[in-house]
């Protein structure tokens, strides 16, 4: 009997657990309803777009749907020599449907991304089909092969075959300067065309140094904020927050005014004789400009978490450190600094993650050597309209951030972050 746990009953004879659940139920529903709008908002604005972005980045169904018969026949083709008559025939009938639906152009563009030269030969084929020059009673293979010599080249048919699966990782490979070679293996692009890798590294580098600069400048400010008497610290706080109240674009534009070759900073350098008038240093449209402007813009994100942590550190701890015989430096390093680590962690993570996806500032003051991966994403969104590639890079950026967050969690522990 002793092993049997006795159920505690209420005075009405209902088990206590049931009774408790019943009593709590109303509160739980209330709590959920309070959270529901935000939850819905998050799902609509966050989970859904990211899912959409992901599916777009790997989606390759368009071509699968355009050439259903061809891909069916191609399953039997080994892909080493020119495909057999049946593949050509199937392709012809697929293509005829596309011509009727006026969608042959899309096919040409899509295939052209896979291999250069498809656009012109599909147009040529289109003209033949439109004029009904293809005789369906004799070998279609022969007739298609006559349209252009590329239709006689096996690499082009291999390229079509590669587009068969409804999903592709090609965009992700492209983001890492790699591609599927003719035989389907993953290959790196030629050395002089590896632009994305440079951009990734540059993004990491700039984000790292911006975080470092923000830390080096923000730490003393935050300390001052936390220790000054109220009337001064409020003023300083306003100075820190002032940039927040100004539009990002305005701030970036003012940095352009300051940093350009005929700008205020250069004028000042010339005035104090630091540089010659005819040899003004380039401080914009390169990394220097990006560093300066981004550090200034992201500084509050470092200062605020640091400040909120430092505010909670009792000044008597530093005094205790000193009275116990520690020099001011030892007292700072052994007592004060370790206590600010949660704030440092939060500030650095915040600044780094913001910096890694920064867009407007590098676009305006970055120039060619200061552009970041986000500018590349924007470029593909707006200029090339290759949204799936933009999505792929966006997701790579996101997963990069998640990895950093994970590493950070391992090193510092997310519980140690303190934002305020």
């Amino acid at each position: 009997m002793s092993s049997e746990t006795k159920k505690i009953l209420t005075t009405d004879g209902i088990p206590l657990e049931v009774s408790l659940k019943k009593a709590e139920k109303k509160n739980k529903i209330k709590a959920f309803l309070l959270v529901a709008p935000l939850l819905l908002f998050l799902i609509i604005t966050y989970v859904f777009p990211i899912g959409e972005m992901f599916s777009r980045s790997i989606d390759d169904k368009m071509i699968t749907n355009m050439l259903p018969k061809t891909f069916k026949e191609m399953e039997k083709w080994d892909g080493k020599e020119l495909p057999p008559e049946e593949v050509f025939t199937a392709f012809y009938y697929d293509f005829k449907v596309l011509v009727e639906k006026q969608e042959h152009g899309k096919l040409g563009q899509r295939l052209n991304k896979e291999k250069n030269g498809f656009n012109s030969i599909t147009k040529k084929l289109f003209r033949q089909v439109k004029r009904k020059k293809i005789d369906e009673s004799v070998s279609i293979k022969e007739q298609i092969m006559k349209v252009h010599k590329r239709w006689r080249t096996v690499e082009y048919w291999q390229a079509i075959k590669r587009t068969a699966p409804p999903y592709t990782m090609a965009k992700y490979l492209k983001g890492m300067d790699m591609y599927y070679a003719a035989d389907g293996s993953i290959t790196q692009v030629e050395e002089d065309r590896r632009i994305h890798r440079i951009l990734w590294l540059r993004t990491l580098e700039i984000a790292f140094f911006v975080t470092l600069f923000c830390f080096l400048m923000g730490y003393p400010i935050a300390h001052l904020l936390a220790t000054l008497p109220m009337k001064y610290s409020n003023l300083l706080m306003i100075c820190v927050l002032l940039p927040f109240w100004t539009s990002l674009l305005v701030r970036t534009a003012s940095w352009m005014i300051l940093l350009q070759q005929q700008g205020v900073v250069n004028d000042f350098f010339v005035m104090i004789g630091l540089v010659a008038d005819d040899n003004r240093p380039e401080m914009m449209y390169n990394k220097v400009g990006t560093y300066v402007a981004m550090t200034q813009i992201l500084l509050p994100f470092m200062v605020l978490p640091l400040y909120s942590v430092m505010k909670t550190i009792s000044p008597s701890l530093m005094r205790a450190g000193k009275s116990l015989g520690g020099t001011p430096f030892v007292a700072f390093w052994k007592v004060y600094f370790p206590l600010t680590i949660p704030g440092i962690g939060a500030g650095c993570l915040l600044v780094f993650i913001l910096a890694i996806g920064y867009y407007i500032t590098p676009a305006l003051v970055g120039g060619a050597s200061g552009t970041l991966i986000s500018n590349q994403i924007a470029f593909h969104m707006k200029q090339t309209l290759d949204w799936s590639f933009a999505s792929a890079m966006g997701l790579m950026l996101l997963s990069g951030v998640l990895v950093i967050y994970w590493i950070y969690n391992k090193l510092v522990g997310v519980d140690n972050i303190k934002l305020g």
Partner: protein
Amino acid sequence: MSKNPEFVKFDKVDKSYDGKVLVVKDLQLDIAEGEFITMLGPSGSGKTTCLMMLAGFETPTHGEILLDGNIISNIPPHKRGIGMVFQNYALFPHMTVYENLAFPLRVRKVEKDEIDKKVDKALSMVSLSGFETRMPAQLSGGQQQRVAVARALVFDPAVVLMDEPLGALDKNLRESMQYEIKHIHESIGVTVVYVTHDQSEALTMSNRIAVFNDGKVQQLSNPAELYEKPVNSFVAEFIGENNTFNGEVIDIAKDKCKVKLANSEILANPISVKSKGEKTTVSLRPERALINPTDKMDNMFTGKIEEVIYHGDHTRVRLNLLGSSEFILKVPNSTSNLELKVSQDINIGWNSTDARALDPK
């Protein structure tokens, strides 16, 4: 080895924070080696400022502070070798108890074995052996307090300063800690400068008490003398309970004076009054006035009970006496207790030596 009677010396120290108001005025205070001295006073009386100047966190505006004959005004806090227990303990929250105690030793580059030994000894002194690996947040308030005391003592400082260290503890714990600190002081003989605004704490623990008010030491003496023989009405008022009569001296002899109140006259002990016609405040401890005195006393009056308050070990009786309804009596609760009832008339008497005629309030 003779004890240095001027181990710590405040020599004409002034302190002002804003250049307008003096927080400490012309402080002259000698503290003997091995002494437990308490600076007692209401908040804002300058006692904590004095402590901070001694610790080195504040600089005197004028005057010198000497430690063992050396001027220390220009020595930074970490070189003074003064231990300090802070109001909120100021334990380092990211270090274990051991690391907290080892901190002052490590910065002094003490050998590892030596550190272990000293930490061990200090912890056993505050009966916290075995708590080395705990974090301060895992300790109760009293335990944190003891760690703070151990940390201030572990590096064998010449002087230990304590800034209201028991303020955050509850009453019972505070009382037991008072004895504990007193015993630690007696066993190792370190000089302790203790700051508090709690008079019973000061009376319990100290060899001598310096009562601060308005930036000045009002009285510096041992607890008994401070209580029994306050030199001015502030001290009389601040330490313990006090019945006061305001009046004017109408006759004065060597050890007795006659004070005229609103409508009666009492005999008092002239302390700070010198001549006839001076205004004075007469101070009388509640327990010095007796009900229905059997002996002959030179002050005998009849009062009317206004209120009876039961306090466990004693009963407080508020009387209307000599035109004032604020006269307090303390009656010990014993079996032979009198039946005290409101609006009853009783006879009260006290000796004139216990009624001290002090400066007018």
